[in-house]
Structure formats: C-alpha cells, structure tokens
C-alpha cells in the first residue's frame, strides 16, 4: 500500500506554504496595506529629511512675496507651491508640517498606548475590582467630550507642541484600554497561561512573557488607528486656533490660515487639507490592513 501511494496523483498535493510565507503573501497582496505603508513611509522619510528636502526656511517671512500662486497656477519654480500670507514658502512649510503631524501622532499614540495598555491588561488579567475600576475609568473618559476638553485645557495651559501632545496622549487611551482588556481576557483563559502560573512565574513575568506577545498584534493595530486619530485632532485644534501655535507649521493651522482667502485662492486650503487627508487615510489603511493580515478571522 505504501509503495502504491508513492506517486499517486491523488496524493500529489501542493505542499502548503509556511505560516510566515502565508503572512508575507497576505501582506504583499493586500492593496490597502501596501498603499498605506508606502505613503506613510514616504511621508516619514520626508519628515526625517525635511531640512534637506525643503527648498526654503519654513519660518523665513518675506512680506514682499506674499501669496504667490503655485507653479501649476502660473507661479514660478522659486516657490513650487506658492507662498503663504506672510510670504513663506508653502512647500517648505508643508514638508516641515509632516514632522509636526507625525511627531504628534506618534508620541500621543505612544503615551495613550502606554496608559491604555496598562489599564486594559490589568483589567483583563486581574478581573474583579480592578476590572470594575478600569471599566469605570473608561466610562468616564468616554463621557468627556474630547474636542471640548482638549480645547479648554490647551486654552488654559497655552498651546505648545508639548502640551498638545500631552493632552492628546492623556485623552485618547480609551480604545487601547477596551481592546487590550478584551484581548487579555481571551488569552488569560488559555492553558499556557495557567501553566505559567502553575510553575510559579511571577505576575509581571506572566504578563510580559505570556500575555503581551499574544496581544501585541492587536496593540499595533490600535496604535496606528489612534495615531491617525491624534493627527486629525491636532489638526482640528490647530484649525480652531488652540493647537500648535504659529509660527510652527502645522497642516491644520495652514488650512486655518488659508481659509481667509479660500474663495479666491482655494489651493491655500486644498493642499494642506489634501496632504492631511492622504496621511490619515494611509495610516488607517495600514491599520485596517494589519488587522486583516494578522487576524483574518476578524476581517470586517
């Protein structure tokens, strides 16, 4: 029988790809994820090398060269995207704006990720009163109107980069807490966690070496989505005039500054808004894509 089966076409089954090969194939065939990754990487590089890429000093004002049109509206290559209301190079401000957006998004997501993960994991792991307390905190946090509280705090404390980052970081941890709590709840019931506890591993050890590795996928997904959220909120705050303060180039602020001339020079508003839209879109696509490829069963 064994030799009979040796080259039976019925058994010439495709030998399946390895799990990592499957993952890579999922990643590269996921259009949204690839697009998102590409755009985010590109903008991250732009932010990183801003001083090399920017044709002008983004802070240098030239009142005699105010609101020059971009090159595709009849401007010159001296200012490829034109100049703003103080005669500063729009392209350079846009490039430096990527720094502000990405930095705010990343640091705020890290801070909120840290808070939310700590709360969520302890709620999920310890359960009982800890869980009840964390759930209560999440409820309180969700009840606070984010935009309004952020506006009020920034208005009281003054709008600097650090304060905006801190406020966003302290406000956006709710989704981390919710997701990490439910992920931890699922993992905690697995045998290997019980096994680790049984052999006497300390609680921090169990959390760090048994729980965290298994929920890190979800964590990464939430980090990206919250980063997008933070970037949008910063832009909205800056647009309302209480976010990042001038002369720091922020895309939200640029939209707000261009708004005055919107009816005549729509590009002043369109360009920074479009870049903001594309960045947030890319980060979201990346987050959705990561969720799809790491946990296909959760695909929505």
């Amino acid at each position, binding site marked *: 029988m064994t030799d009979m089966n040796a080259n039976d076409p019925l058994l010439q089954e495709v030998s399946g790809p390895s799990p990592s090969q499957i993952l890579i194939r999922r990643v590269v065939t996921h259009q949204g994820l690839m697009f998102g990754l590409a755009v985010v990487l590109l903008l991250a590089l732009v932010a990183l090398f801003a001083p090399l890429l920017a044709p002008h000093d983004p802070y240098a004002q030239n009142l005699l060269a105010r609101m020059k049109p971009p090159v595709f509206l009849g401007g010159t290559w001296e200012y490829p995207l034109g100049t703003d209301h103080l005669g500063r190079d729009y392209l350079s401000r846009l490039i430096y704006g990527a720094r502000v957006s990405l930095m705010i998004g990343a640091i705020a997501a890290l801070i909120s990720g840290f808070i939310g993960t700590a709360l969520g994991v302890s709620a999920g792991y310890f359960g009982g009163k800890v869980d009840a307390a964390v759930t209560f905190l999440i409820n309180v946090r969700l009840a*606070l109107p*984010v935009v309004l*509280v952020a*506006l*009020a705090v920034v208005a009281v404390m003054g709008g600097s980069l650090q304060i905006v980052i801190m406020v966003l970081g302290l406000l956006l941890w709710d989704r981390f807490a919710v997701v990490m709590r439910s992920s931890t709840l699922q993992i905690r019931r697995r045998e290997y966690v019980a096994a680790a506890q049984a052999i006497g591993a300390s609680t921090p050890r169990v959390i760090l070496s048994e729980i965290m590795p298994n929920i890190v996928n979800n964590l990464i997904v939430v980090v990206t989505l919250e980063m997008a959220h933070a970037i949008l909120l910063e832009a*909205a705050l800056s*647009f309302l005039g*209480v976010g990042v303060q001038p002369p720091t180039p922020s895309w939200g602020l640029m939209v707000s500054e261009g708004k005055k001339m919107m009816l005549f020079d729509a590009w002043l508003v369109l360009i920074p808004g479009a870049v903001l839209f594309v960045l947030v879109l890319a980060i979201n696509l990346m987050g959705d894509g990561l969720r799809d490829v790491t946990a296909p069963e959760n695909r929505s």
Partner: protein
Amino acid sequence: MFLILWSTPVLNFILKRLMLAAIVALTVSFISFSLMFLSGDPAAALAGETASGEDIEAIRALYGFDRPMLVQYWEWLGSALSGDFGQSYYFKLPVASLIADRLGVTMTLGVCGISFALLTAVPLGVAAAIRPNSFIDRLSLFLSVAGQAMPSFWFGLILIVVFSIKLGLLPPSGANSWRHFIMPTIVLGYYAMPAIMRLTRAGMLDVLSSDYIRTARAKGASETRVLFKHGLRNAIIPVVSLAAVQMGFMLGGSIVVESIFALHGAGFLAWESIGRNDLPTVQALILIFAMFYIVFTFLADVLNAWLDPRMRSS
C-alpha cells in the same frame, strides 16, 4: 413587550445602569470643575480696570474664590444640580439660560447628523453585506475609509466652496431654514457614518452566515423576509448602541462644524467661551455634553435590553 421590559431583572439592570451613570456624571463634573479651577480665579477681571490689589482681594473674598477647591466644587455642584450654573463672566447672564438658548441648534444638528449617518450607513452596510466584493461593497468601503480620514473642518470648507460658492445651491452659514442645515448635517453625519457602516456590514455578514438564517431559508421564507425580518433585526442591535455613542461624540464634536458654518449652537458657544475665559460657561458645557453622552448610552442600553431578548432576562 413592554411588560417584559419591566420585569424584575430588567428593572435591576436599569437601576444598576442608572447608578453607574450617576457616578460617571459626578466624576465628570469634578473633572470639568477642576480643569477650569486650574486656570486661576477671575477676581481681577471682575474688579475692573481701575481696581487696586486690595479691591481684588475683597472681590476674591466676596465671591469666595479664596476658599479650598473642594468647598467651591461642592457649592457649584449643589447649584448645578438645581440647574444653576452661575453667571457668564462675559455676558453677565445666567449660564443656564445662555446654554438653553443655543442647545436647540446643536440638538437639531445632532439629530439630523445621526439620522443622516444611519440612513446612509445602514442601507449601504446591508447592501455591502448582501453582496460582498460587489461594486456597492467597494463603494461603501471607500466611503467609510475616506470618511475616517476626512478632517471635518476641511470637508466643511470644501462643501462651502462647491455648493455655496461655485454652484450657489446652499446657504453657507446660519440656521434660518432647513437648507442651512444640509451641509452641517452632511459633515457631522459623515463623521459618524464609517463606524456605523462597518458595524452594520460586519454584523450583517455575521448574521447572514448564521444557522438561523439557514433555518429561515429552509422554512421557505422569501429573501427579503430572510434579510430584514431575520437578518437585520439581529444585526441592528449593536448598531443601536454605537449610534448612541456616536451621537454623544457628535454633540461634543459639533464645535468644529458649528464654527465653520457659523451655527450659533452650544458647540460654538463653547469655543467662544474658551477664548473669552468664560469659565462658568465652559464648565457647564463640558458637563452638559458629558451628560448627553451618559444619557444616550444609558438609553441605548435600555433600548438594547428591549431589542435583545437575551439581555432582557439575563
């Protein structure tokens, strides 16, 4: 059906939920009070421009700004509970009446916004779930991904440029007629739409692959009956909760929309009051917006208990 709702377990559930809501509200009120407390006291402003340091001290003592924060909070809470949020520093009018005057616009906007979101998101989500990967599925996916990334202030400005300036179809600002609410509704509704649509689609996909849908088909029920009576009825339950949460978020987020379209609602008042350092107004608004969220999620939970028989008896 309502008789079942008022059975003992449901009543217990509602009571527990009410308790939680009350404690959350109390905590929020404390946070909003202390946030504003940090910004210092307004004695100097009240004293007027010719006042001396002693005058300011006198006013501070008169208004009680020199007392410990907890004492002031307690007093503020007491009057807030009876609907008295103090006087606006800017308008010299009772904050409560100031807010009451403007809440109508915000509520109208919120109701229009959530209706718009539901009326677009639910049909799109259902259609997408019925035919995954079809054109309509891709369209709704695109709309939701774009919606999540769209800065609402930018979206609003673009709508103004296109519909008010270029096409001249809609008034760019104000709140005098239903036409004034069209663009704000779209901007605010579009903010809530993606999440609702995704949840509807996911829920519907989940439900449609469930065994009881197969049972319904095996009974010989028509496709419409299967989709709506058996499918949507179950898929909509989590959407109700989400819509309530989104409604709470939307009211809090109406600041941006109201400022773009110059709608004189509570959100706009909040923005202006923040700039004017009008603390009593800001405190009251934070609390009121939080209360909206708390009340909406509470109502959603009760509604859920009514819609979902499993919650009703467990």
